[in-house]
């Protein structure tokens, strides 16, 4: 391995070890939360709702819950590791090393995306306990998950640089991300909304992510998946470019 690869691999490994060694903080919460979601929304309420778009309600909500877990954890991972490193100054060990700014950003985002994907798989695993999980378009599923977790890993880097207290992290996750996901057609079909609210919902980027993953899993979507994927990829590239720029300028990192 050349020097650049070793540097990148070291930071990725450090980031992965950080969340793998703390499963009670990282992987257990989404397992418990999603077990509760499936129990309440899927089994108790879902049995009264019946089918949506030709699949059971449980199968309909599963992709949305996967997106919710994936973006929450990839965002949380990147924002926490950057902010905590800043808070305790130990990010300086990375910043004062010969790693390139791009390599640092790519490592933080990659590890965060990986955590989001692992969380997705765990949620699918929980879903399998309650229902069958079809894989209608696996390549789309993989592509959407990669783009979504990378995008939110990249946004998490911005959040981690911007935050000046732990409260900021809570605000971003609970008051911005979660409402967007909950109004992102996780638990309902856009077709049940009045036209006005359906159009308003289309302004919510989460709708495209949920529909994309839903298309990958159960083959049902209310929005063209190729358009969604292209737009999300474009946004991801822009967010990563912002990350690189912020690191280069030392925003939140250097005085």
């Amino acid at each position, binding site marked *: 391995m050349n020097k650049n690869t070793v540097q990148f691999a*070291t930071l990725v*490994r450090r980031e992965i070890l950080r969340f793998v060694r703390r499963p009670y903080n990282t992987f257990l919460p989404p397992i418990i939360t999603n077990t509760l979601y499936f129990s309440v929304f899927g089994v108790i309420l879902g049995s009264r709702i019946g089918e949506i778009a030709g699949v059971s309600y449980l199968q309909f909500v599963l992709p949305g819950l996967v997106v919710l877990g994936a973006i929450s954890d990839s965002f949380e991972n990147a924002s926490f590791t950057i902010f905590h490193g800043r808070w305790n*100054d*130990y990010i300086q*060990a990375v910043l*004062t090393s010969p790693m390139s700014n791009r390599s640092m950003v790519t490592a933080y985002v990659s590890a965060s995306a990986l955590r989001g994907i692992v969380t997705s798989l765990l949620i699918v695993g929980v879903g399998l306990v309650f229902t069958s999980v079809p894989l209608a378009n696996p390549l789309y599923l993989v592509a959407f998950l990669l783009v979504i977790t990378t995008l939110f890993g990249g946004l998490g880097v911005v959040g981690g640089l911007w935050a000046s207290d732990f409260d900021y992290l809570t605000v971003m996750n609970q008051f911005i991300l979660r409402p967007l996901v909950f109004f992102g057609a996780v638990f309902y079909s856009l077709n049940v909304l009045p036209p006005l609210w359906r159009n308003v919902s289309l302004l919510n980027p989460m709708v495209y992510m949920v529909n994309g993953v839903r298309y990958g899993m159960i083959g049902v979507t209310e929005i063209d998946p190729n358009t969604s994927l292209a737009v999300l990829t474009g946004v991801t590239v822009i967010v990563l470019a912002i990350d690189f720029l912020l690191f280069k300028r030392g925003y939140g990192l250097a005085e």
Partner: protein
Amino acid sequence: MTDPAIRTGDLRKRYGDVQALDGLDLTVDHGEFFGLLGPNGAGKTTFINTLVGLVHKDSGTAEVFGFDVEDDYREVRDRIGLAPQEFNVDRFFPIIEVLEHKAGYHGIGSEEARRRAEDALKTVGIWEKRDTRFDWLSGGMKRRFVLARALVSNPDLLILDEPTAGVDVQLRHDLWDIINRMNDEGTTILLTTHYIEEAERLCDRVAIMDSGRKVEVAAPDELMARGTDTIDIGLADPPRTAPRLDVEGVTEVAIIDDGLSVTAAGGSQTAPALMRALEQQGHTVTSLDIRRASLEEVFVDLTRDDREYAEVSA
């Protein structure tokens, strides 16, 4: 390597109303043991952080081994090992892994990183604590660890920001031994310290900084030679009033119990002429004691003079 280890020109950095670096010009030669002295707020840490990229300069130049600290930041940081004043250690991992990570960030492969981490912990004497997390180390061990982390990348320039602050005498001597060994092996050392004795004992040259400026740079002995020595002269017949002594270098003459206390620049050179002058006035010298100015006194004089100059200029 022909370029100096550090070279700055008119380096400036301002935080709001505070001019932390005010046109700093400084050169540290390759292989030198260089001390940076100055009161709190003199700009020492800002200067160090500028070199490693934690502070972005407003203007001026800063180079490490000929590489610009911003344009060539990767080359610069690859050559520097930093032991900062404040503890900034990854609390998630046992200390040996923290060292492996640091080595990895410098592009050192995992096997070699492990070997270097082990060596560094043995060098600073905390090998038995390798599986402990940083928070569980004692204060002295934490200081040792921060030095180990700076050593693990085998730097050409070792920067130590107050490395012995708050440590006991034994540990201070241990750290001095390690640093001296590194310097003997060719590593350039930049040391900031509040302990004047430390600078006097270790450094080839010291720079005295104040208010973001370099006040003076010289070898500790040279600086001390510029200070004012005190010559206590015992006289068989002590006078009641201080005699007038027209001897070059004498700045003050005072009566003490059994003679005179004379303040003079370069005490050793002044003493013979002083004795002759006293004997010419009819006094009999019974004893002579020359106390050299300490680096601490020179430091206080220089930084006080600089502040007075700054106040007058303002």
